[in-house]
């Protein structure tokens, strides 16, 4: 691509910056582990916006998991490119748009720039969308963990089976293959199944 990397000291850790022809390209990298820390996600988005005046092309690089769970097109109207990566490859999901150099006359103006407000509103909506996505991902992860725990023990009975208690529960009818190992040969199954029956009374002590 003919680009060369800028001085390492100029850019924060986890970010990449290149000069390609006359354009400066800046990439903010979001890693899988960053999803756990909400601040990291906010930080990534904010750092992208702060670079609008100093770089002409901006990218957010994120794990492919993000692309699968949000509509990547949300980045398009704001000119921010989206790179999705996994262990094998990196794809440009959304190409970036060239950022306009800052208008100095506007900068000196006392009246607030309506464009800036629009940008803030869109950034806020992007952030909200990201928050929602992360919350969904966390919930999905929790459900997956829960399901994998349940499914690894195929012997475990369904909740409806557990909830059933026959008054004359015969411990000898238990199928050992359906219950956790600590149930097998446990004499309490027989003792407890007789609770409330005649002759089953506690010792006064």
């Amino acid at each position: 691509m003919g680009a060369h990397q800028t001085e390492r000291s100029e850019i924060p850790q986890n970010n990449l910056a290149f000069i390609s022809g006359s354009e400066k390209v800046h990439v903010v990298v979001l890693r899988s582990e960053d999803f756990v820390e909400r601040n990291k996600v906010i930080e990534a988005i904010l750092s992208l916006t702060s670079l609008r005046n100093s770089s002409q092309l901006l990218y957010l690089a994120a794990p492919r998991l993000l692309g699968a769970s949000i509509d990547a097109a949300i980045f398009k109207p704001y000119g921010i490119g989206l790179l999705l990566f996994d262990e094998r490859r990196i794809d440009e999901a959304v190409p970036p748009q060239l950022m306009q150099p800052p208008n100095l006359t506007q900068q000196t103006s006392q009246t607030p720039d309506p464009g800036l407000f629009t940008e803030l509103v869109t950034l806020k909506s992007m952030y909200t969308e990201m928050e929602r996505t992360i919350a969904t991902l966390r919930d999905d992860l929790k459900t997956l963990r829960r399901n994998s725990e349940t499914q690894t023990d195929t012997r475990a009975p369904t909740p409806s089976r557990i909830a059933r208690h026959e008054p004359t529960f015969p411990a000898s009818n238990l199928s050992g293959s359906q219950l956790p190992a600590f149930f097998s040969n446990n004499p309490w199954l027989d003792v407890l199944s007789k609770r409330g029956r005649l002759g089953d009374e506690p010792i006064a002590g």
Partner: protein
Amino acid sequence: MDFGTSDFKYGPITCGETPRIVNNRGYFPDKNSVVYKAFESTDEVIVGEDVPLYLQSAEDLSSRLVYPMRNGMIDKADDTAWQVVSALTNLGLNTFKPEPNNGFQGYYVVASLSSVSPRYMYERLLDLFKQNNANGNVKAITVIPQPFAVAIGHGVTTCVVIESGHGNSQICPISKYPIRAAQVVLNRGGGDANAITSEILKDTGYGDLANEEAFVRKVKENIGLVPADLDAALDEAKRSPRRFRAKYKVPGTRVEIDLEKDSWSRFLIGEYVFNPNHEVFESYFGRGMPRPRDVKMGDTTFRGMLDFGDAIVTSVERCPVELQPMLYREVLLSGGNFSWTVPERLEDIAVDAPTKIKSLLRQKGIKNVSVKMTKSPQFSVWHGCLIYGFAVPDDYEWDWQRLEGWMKLSG
């Protein structure tokens, strides 16, 4: 659901051998903090896996982080602690939702509390379950004492269970039912072993580290030993200090403890847990270390200086005479305070917890004794809860005198 002093273990039988575990604690966030607003949480108290996210912003953990059952009991008026228990109950009930249309009739929930829990704790906990059963997923609820659950989980119907935690130790005979009137409680636990370890560190020149609780606990776990006979162990260790040298380096730091010629004192740590009556401890009491005192909480007196041998004998002798030999034949030890190891080449002097208990009972003239650690010290209470919930008939109704049976919530 097992409400332990440090951890809350919960989950239905479909979890298999291992329950879900979260710390038995709750965090009360500062509602004015930016982090609280950013997370948009509406919860008064945070429990479970999310607690660490809030801890990062905490300025005063001591007042906002609450461990409701540190000593096994909650005061009647301690609303903060009960709020945490309510939140944990909710977590336990809402984590596992039944699949729709599979014939589910409602969960039978078994909760386990410390055996020293007074009646008002049962009342309050059962009320919490009623309040938190808005979705009607719980059909019935019951509460059983932890030593009883340990015996069930271990599969022994006649035994003495000794559960030793951070603040106290409970000795509870079981014969198909917990024999509540024979229960003995000691006002001594892992925290007392920490206290004497701290004194030893002060005496050996490590006073600057002696107030760091987590560090002192690590030192206790790494250098503390239980002597078969304290006098013999002290003589031998003073004669051969190199053989018994107590040395511990904290991983990842430059901090190293080396007791050198005072390494004999490592035997005091283990002995103090089992028997604090040896004259050697008097010098520590004389210099300000608090002597474990008898304390009355509710209807129960927590004994301070009773050694474990006397405590077991006192408890067993409150039971019918014909039952006593059977109880001595199955003494079960449960809880982190019994996890003592014996280093190689010190087997002639140091012992594990079951051997020490056997030796203390032998001194009282009790010889035909079997003492064992529970098969699964961490989960035996939860295992016991599952077996109880599975086997007890549906028509065995809750009885406030027996403190057993099902309290029906729906259906």
